């Protein structure tokens, strides 16, 4: 696969890992945060922690849109979808996320019309195919996905598709990063910057992290070599006491971002004054709602939405894990009441959630001995 396989070349990976070992100061413990859930997933999928030196710690950030979605929002959408004329459509990741009375999948087992889609345009197709029903697309995601939802809203309006609406939970990445840096318990050396969000917003929005917080940030791709190269770049900056924004993912990310995408978003969305993030509390100007010009396609305007607020069980420490303050294994429910099969919090459901990743990787590899012959 072009643009994929060459970035998974084992020989080059070994070289990059070797370079990292040479650059890393043995007297220093590096704490690097990878903000984006896709990076969390890639690190585990490619087993990259196996080839990094012990003194480089990768901390998972809050860039998992499933993980930061408060349970109340799922409850709200499912309440709307109780209406037999409503079809609940969402991406696969959402299907097993627990609401108070069960996940969308469990609701489907009890008779709710729940469909998986792989694109917001699939949801519009569903609406066209089911004229007697209303398709509610449960939209989540950061700025990577928001433009696609934006274009879909524009299409729905242009084509006059009235049995379709979007339940919008899009959030923005910068406030999340700010919340991390504002957190008193945080101690980070640098950031592995979100790759695909940056194809939309570009690299400029991260400049304050370098200038004001004096932390280096490298916008990073998703293949093993991308991650390793970004770590090399971060180590070099730290070695030279620098703090700047660098673009490792140049082949895909334009420094100025995608103007057409930002335009589409500006036309269909506006910032909510505040929005609740699971584990992080209310953050102002951090989420998108649909503009009044598109009110007819906004589920929250078309339907009566109960506005359910659910507090996480006291014992669940999703917030601290999200902020990287606690390791998943340090949460009291981890591995006991909360497992990938019986998740209490969203960090255990989503494959990008730190807890799920940690459970499948570190927790179960705890018995590993040198006999497996993993070369480092």
């Amino acid at each position, binding site marked *: *696969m072009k643009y*994929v396989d060459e970035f998974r070349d*084992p020989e080059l*990976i*070994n070289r990059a*890992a070797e370079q990292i070992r040479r650059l890393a100061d043995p007297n220093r413990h590096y704490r690097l945060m990878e903000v984006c859930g896709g990076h969390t997933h890639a690190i*585990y*999928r*490619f*087993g*990259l922690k*196996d*080839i990094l030196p012990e003194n480089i710690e990768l901390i998972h950030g809050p860039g998992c849109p499933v993980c930061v979605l408060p349970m109340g929002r799922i409850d709200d959408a499912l309440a709307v979808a109780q209406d037999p004329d409503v079809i609940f459509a969402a991406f*696969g990741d959402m*299907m*097993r996320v627990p609401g108070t009375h069960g996940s969308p*999948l*469990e609701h*489907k*087992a009890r008779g709710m019309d729940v469909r998986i889609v*792989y*694109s917001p*345009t*699939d949801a519009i197709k569903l609406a066209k195919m089911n004229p007697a029903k209303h398709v509610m697309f449960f939209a989540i995601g950061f700025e990577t996905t928001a433009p696609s939802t934006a274009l879909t809203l524009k299409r729905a309006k242009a084509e006059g598709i009235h049995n379709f609406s979007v339940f919008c939970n899009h959030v923005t990445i910068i406030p999340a990063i700010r919340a991390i840096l504002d957190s008193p318990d945080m101690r980070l050396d640098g950031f592995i910057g979100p790759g695909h969000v940056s194809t939309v917003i570009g690299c400029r929005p991260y400049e304050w992290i370098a200038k004001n917080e004096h932390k280096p940030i490298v916008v990073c791709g998703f293949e*093993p070599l991308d991650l390793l190269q970004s770590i090399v770049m971060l180590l070099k900056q730290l070695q030279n006491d620098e703090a700047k924004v660098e673009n490792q993912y140049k082949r895909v990310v334009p420094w100025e971002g995608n103007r057409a995408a930002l335009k589409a978003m500006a036309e269909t969305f506006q910032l909510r004054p505040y929005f609740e993030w699971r584990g992080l509390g209310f953050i102002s100007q951090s989420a998108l709602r649909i503009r009044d010009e598109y009110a007819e396609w906004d589920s929250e305007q078309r339907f009566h939405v109960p506005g359910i607020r659910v507090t996480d069980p006291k014992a669940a420490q999703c917030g601290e894990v999200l902020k990287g303050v606690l390791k998943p294994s340090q949460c009291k429910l981890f591995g006991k009441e909360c497992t*990938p*099969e019986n998740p209490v919090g969203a960090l255990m459901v989503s494959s990008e959630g730190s807890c799920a990743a940690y459970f*499948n*990787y570190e927790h*179960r*590899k705890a*018995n*590993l*001995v040198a*006999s*497996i012959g*993993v*070369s*480092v």
Partner: protein
Amino acid sequence: MSSATKIGVSAPKIRFREPQIEMAHGAGGKASRRLVEGLFAPLFFGASAEPLSDAAQLKINGARLAVTTDSFVVKPLVFPGGSIGELAINGTVNDLAVSGAKPQAIVVTFILEAGLRTDVLQAEIEAMAKAAQEAGVRIAGGDTKVVEHGKADSMYITTTGLGAPLPGVEINPQSVCPGDKILLSGPIGDHGITILLARGELDMEGDLRSDTRCVFPMVNAVVEAAGPGIRWMRDPTRGGVATSLNELARDCGLGVVLFEDSVPIHDAVRGACELLGLDPLHIANEGQFLAVVAPELADAALKALKQTPGGDEARIIGEIREQPVGSVLVTTLYGGSRIIDMLVGDPLPRIC
């Protein structure tokens, strides 16, 4: 749940606590295992703690017999490379084959939906007759029921197969040892992805066909080349190779190490999985099998497999080690690794 107490034995321990059946319980992964081990096994098999296998080995009046049953629920009924009828025959024949038995006869049950067109049914019966002939099995009988329109999704097929255990083959996960090699007969994921595309719900198409076929000739080749060294076999259907290997790891109490770069996979399957965020190791196959073979006989087994028609893409994809106990570890060429679990949930509905 106390029928067992009536016959004077202690009540079987029912461990299945879920209040209702969900789709996941039929997906072939963790939930399915919970249902079978927690509800069916205690009530059907009592205190016997034998690991569950693809086929049961019975002894009746001194004669040894392998028997298996399976049901097929597929949408769409017909897809590139096959149809539900073919799956039904091959699926059961393969279960017998990987239990170390030569398939002999099959009985078939149909649950048909009122309104099903006769020509559609006829096409399936023809497909089944052809598949049975190719597999060298007799269709010995069957039953048919019809339910109201809307209650059966066109047709459900259940097959029960009987086979004669091959001499010298002793399938037993307890006999698996560190150092044993894991063989795979061919590329993974073709069936599951073909079905997904055939549904037409995705804006995606590719040149893929289901890999449904009778694997007995290949199994037989391996048995002839390495019979005494075969410890375990399985056909990785729903839940994929990862689920089967997790079952192996659990049943033998050792570690299964899989070399990711050795697993054969067609480009189109890889592309589809990357596009959809699916792991090919969890996708169903209908014409492949896994075998654990003693290291001294593994090369001979692989050679025999490769020389059998259809076995040319067979590979050794991993080995058994002491660690990680009860789990499957996937390793890469550069020393990275990850644990892969059996399927949780079900990415692909109604595929076999």
